């Protein structure tokens, strides 16, 4: 055992050195037209050596260290309490939702404009994660190209407004429905696929959409993106300083208040909030309906589900379509918030982050997913001080999370059903 650990630790330390020495130690210096290679400074060499020693020691005593880590949750007084009763848990969940919604409502009036903007982004991610939760968490279909539907929603609004001058409110359902259509269409080729294969096909689909947007320059403007996407209006009232469209009036003049750029930000935030709540409630309802149970049944055992008369086609397509629908929602809001979109915003990393939110939150658990969406969006912002290391910190946080709570922040709890006594 010890010998094995020693060998493993030596190997890890060795790898550390050969990876970090060239990356940190060697520098390419441009001198005129030629490039010269500069060796490492003594300080770097010492640091690399220290890092190797640290890796060596960690790997050598790995079992002991992880053992200590494993005991840490026991310090948490909440870890040992018994299961909470159904009514109490539902009540707690309700209180949680009401509290968070109340906080969300007063939020824009107590914080700075930047914080409201960030909160809007959080809400968009909540919508995306709740939608993906249907596909991955409930139906168990690993979708790595989810961002494609988000892009469809965003581009639908951008293109419709650019070519036909269609407003946000009309584009919202169109964008969502078009994204749903894309989800439906993608559903067909992947019907027979499961697990890894499905993941790869969806990954490919996501990339196809992005590359298409990037290269169809005549329509989408390619990498230059589309700008000048209009802001949403409130019953024909615009939020700009001057009215852009004829027949509209401006918000600040109607109410006789001074113009402020914040009105628009707050208004967008409130729209995102309403849509996020809508998403939450609709999906919550679905989960308690036959269709939601069918998703889970398909995840649990496809053969048994089919033997009971469930059509694999209908169940899978409904999951894909409904998931995509909410991504389309989020996309439309995103386009309106940014005012400018380009394929840059819809890269694979986005899909990965949304998936990470679902997994971190706890597959299938709505409260968990919302908490995770807040954490994942805000953490990188808080970690800005660490500049280039923030992604590193983000990654480390995820690894630790998966070590401590592989089931997610708040794993899904089954709904208990009261069966009436027979009269």
């Amino acid at each position: 055992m010890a010998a094995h650990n020693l060998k493993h630790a030596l190997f890890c330390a060795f790898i550390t050195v050969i990876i970090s020495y060239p990356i940190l130690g060697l520098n390419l210096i441009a001198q005129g037209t030629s490039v010269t290679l500069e060796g490492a400074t003594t300080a770097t060499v010492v640091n690399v050596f220290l890092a190797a020693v640290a890796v060596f020691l960690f790997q050598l005593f790995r079992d002991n260290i992880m053992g200590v880590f494993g005991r840490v949750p026991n310090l948490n007084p909440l870890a040992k309490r018994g299961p909470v009763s159904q009514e109490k848990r539902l009540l707690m969940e309700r209180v949680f939702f009401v509290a968070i919604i109340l906080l969300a409502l007063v939020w824009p009036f107590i914080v700075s404009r930047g914080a409201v903007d960030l909160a809007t982004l959080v809400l968009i991610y909540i919508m995306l994660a709740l939608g993906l939760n249907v596909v991955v968490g409930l139906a168990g279909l690993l979708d790595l190209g989810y961002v494609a539907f988000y892009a469809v929603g965003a581009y639908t609004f951008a293109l419709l407004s650019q070519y036909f001058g269609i407003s946000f409110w009309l584009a919202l359902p169109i964008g969502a429905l078009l994204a749903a259509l894309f989800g439906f269409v993608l559903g067909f080729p992947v019907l027979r696929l499961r697990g890894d294969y499905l993941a790869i096909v969806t990954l490919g689909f996501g990339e196809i959409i992005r590359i298409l947007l990037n290269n169809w320059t005549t329509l989408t403007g390619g990498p230059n993106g589309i700008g000048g996407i209009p802001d949403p209006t409130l019953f024909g009232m615009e939020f700009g300083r001057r009215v852009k469209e004829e027949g509209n009036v401006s918000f600040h003049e109607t109410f006789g208040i001074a113009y402020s750029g914040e009105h628009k930000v707050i208004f967008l935030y409130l729209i995102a909030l309403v849509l996020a709540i809508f998403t939450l409630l609709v999906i919550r309802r679905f989960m308690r309906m036959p269709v939601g149970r069918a998703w889970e049944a398909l995840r649990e055992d496809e053969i048994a589900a089919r033997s009971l008369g469930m059509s694999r086609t209908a169940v899978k397509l409904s999951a894909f379509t409904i998931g995509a629908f909410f991504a389309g929602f989020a996309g439309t809001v995103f386009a309106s918030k940014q005012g400018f979109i380009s394929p840059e915003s819809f890269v694979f990393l986005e899909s990965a982050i949304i998936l990470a939110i679902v997994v971190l939150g706890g597959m299938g658990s709505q409260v968990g997913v919302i908490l995770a969406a807040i954490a994942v969006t805000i953490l990188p912002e808080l970690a800005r001080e660490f500049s280039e290391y923030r992604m590193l910190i983000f990654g480390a946080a995820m690894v630790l999370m998966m070590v401590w709570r592989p089931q997610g922040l708040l794993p899904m709890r089954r709904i208990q059903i009261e069966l009436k006594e027979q009269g």
Partner: protein
Amino acid sequence: MLEVQNLSMRFGGLLAVDQVSVDVREHEIVSIIGPNGAGKTTVFNCISGFYKPTGGKILFQGQEIQGKPDYKISRLGMVRTFQHVRLFSKMTVVENLLVAQHRHLNTNLFAGLLKTPDYREREKKSLERARYWLDRVGLLEMANWEAGNLAYGQQRRLEIARCMVTEPQLLMLDEPAAGLNPAETKELDQLIVSLKEDYNVSVLLIEHDMSLVMGISDRINVINQGRPLASGTPEEIRQNDDVIKAYLGEA
């Protein structure tokens, strides 16, 4: 009710089932027995639509069903259990029974969202049916347990209850007694007979437990190496020389 005529199933060079015929009439328990690897489960898979048979006909209520998709066959009123229990193990016991009654699945997306009275009525009925069957198989206490946490015998019973809530006409049980202790087997025995007597369900049964098969079957079909070997009443089968040879080997 169910007529299987000259069913054949070929996997590449292997003829797993060769010219097997089985028929089940109303109000009857019919068993298929045979040594391991005889092709019994393959016959089941063909009937329930998991495999597309390479030859022969399958008629259910006079309608040809061979080659139809599995979910359509089960909607006709013919459901099965599996050799290795297949429950939705992360869902609760009661949810397992609700899932099975999803016939209002596709049409009612909006009715469900809006909770129309019609939808509530259906939901209430399926809950009542679930409750009834849980009581019937003695799992009412565990209604809100995760199905995967049940004991093996309870899982077997739940699987049967899950079939029964779909109100089938024909129930196909693939080795329901496998892994049960003698007391549980006896309970199962009574349950199957009661399904036939009290709920008027016909049963097609694959089983190794001879006491169970001989006790409750109206007729028995024996298959050996994919071919039909004998068929008849339990008494006839017990005295059939071919069957004895196939089971005990030639002296």
